[in-house]
């Protein structure tokens, strides 16, 4: 269970998070939605311990990670995997080495054991055969899948996804979402994703939380969020413009 309590964060005069509260129950897919630039990625960086809040707590299975730093954070970090928005694959390593990297650096597994785990992870994301290629030699969709394989290979309890479908075409968006859903059903990890892929995320989420102006305005199962009467949520889901644009066919008088 991941619980966020009263998280606030400012950059200079710009207050990005203004008291975020939400929960991600164990073994579910929780998706945080919200407009671009609304603080979703900042929130995720707090969840994975890359940023420290001005106030508030991030509690993962009872441990407040905002109070931990350096080596104390390492055991927590070994329990989760992260899929970054850009994939963040090491471009000097092949796809195989990218997936194997964390295993070879943080575990005492033997060479054959690492090979088996990497092969399994690449099979799970349907990428058998791309191991020897470098990230620059494969497509954007394949890079995202290698990034997912890299997050999966350590068999983490929690996986954080930072807009994993950004920059992909609609077919690939669906493919990646279906992949995440099927992996989740098979491996039962807790997934927290930030995304603005509406309406696709409603098909895979167990819970959806809407982040707006630094606060969670509503959270609940996808059907509850879709049926919400909150004007902010309705506007976001329907993709309505913030202000009614002037009709270009009408001439001002």
């Amino acid at each position, binding site marked *: 269970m991941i619980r966020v309590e009263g998280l606030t964060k400012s950059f200079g005069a710009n207050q990005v998070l203004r008291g975020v509260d939400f929960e991600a129950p164990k073994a579910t897919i929780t998706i945080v939605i919200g407009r671009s630039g609304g603080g979703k990625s900042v929130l995720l960086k707090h969840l*994975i*311990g*890359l940023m420290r809040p001005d106030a508030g707590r991030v509690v993962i299975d009872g441990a407040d990670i905002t109070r931990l730093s350096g080596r104390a*954070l*390492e*055991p927590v*970090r*070994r329990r*989760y995997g*992260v899929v*970054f*928005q*850009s994939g*963040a*694959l*090491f*471009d000097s390593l092949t796809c195989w080495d990218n997936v194997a*990297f*964390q295993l070879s*650096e*943080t575990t005492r597994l033997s060479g054959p054991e690492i090979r088996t785990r990497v092969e399994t992870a690449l099979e799970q994301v349907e990428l058998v055969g791309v191991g020897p290629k470098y990230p620059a030699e494969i497509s954007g969709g394949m890079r995202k899948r290698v990034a997912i394989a890299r997050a999966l290979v350590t068999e983490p309890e929690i996986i954080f996804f930072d807009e994993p479908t950004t920059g992909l075409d609609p077919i690939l968006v669906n493919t990646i979402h279906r992949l995440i859903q099927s992996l989740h059903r098979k491996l039962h990890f807790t997934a927290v994703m930030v995304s603005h892929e509406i309406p696709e995320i409603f098909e895979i989420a167990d819970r959806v939380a809407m982040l707006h102006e630094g606060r969670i305005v509503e959270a609940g199962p996808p059907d509850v969020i879709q049926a919400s009467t909150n004007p902010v949520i309705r506007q976001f889901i329907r993709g309505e413009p913030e202000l009614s644009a002037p009709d270009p066919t009408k001439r001002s008088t």
Partner: protein
Amino acid sequence: MTESVPRSLRPFEAIGRRTIGVVDALGRFGTFLGVALGLLVTPPFKLRAFIGRIHYIGFNSLLIILLTGSFTGMVLGLQIYVTLSRFGSEAYLGPAVALSLIRELGPVLAALMVTGRAGSALTAELGIMRISEQIDALTVMALNPFRYLVVPSILAGVISFPLMTALFDVVGIFGGYLVGVELLGLSQGTYFGEMKTFVDMKDIMTGFWKSLCFGVIVTWVATYKGFHVGHGAEGVARATTQSVVLASVLILVWDYFMGSVLP
């Protein structure tokens, strides 16, 4: 807040804010090296990353070191010969070239060349890793990016800078030999014999300590700037420029300091 400060005091407020900013940046700069040096002496050591950096900083800079070293020696040979011949002291060409190279020009010019070639590339590489979240990826894997990216670079600088400086000095002395002996007719025995008389071990050690310090300075600045890059391609470009300029200035300042402290 600026609004609450009386107009007459605003210049002082600006100076104060700037000063705090500079002190803050210096603190971060120093802490960065402190953390790296702390990890330098604590296991686990990343041998593969270290060998990679030796290749990147040292081996890949060999050609530029050989070229600049030989031409620096040739220019020194020519200019010093012309000057010494006015006083009939051409015999001292060998020691003059060797001392100039070993004490000053070797460490400084080799460091400046490596700054331009490897320091800039190191900053750009780390900067791109930073903006493409590769450094964050290392962190969330419970792996310390300092251990993988900064420590091997600084250690490689400490090992490869003195070696490259030695190479620069040797090819420079032979460059001076080419001009002084082969072109201008000085005897070979005079060139090398007088050199043996005048160049002491302490001169060699001065050059060695300088090059060792420059190895730390260049890799420290390059990795710091790469880690603290701004946004996008422009941020990487700015950090790379700042890295080369800052490292070059620090090399010259530190050279003067060491020149006045060391015997």
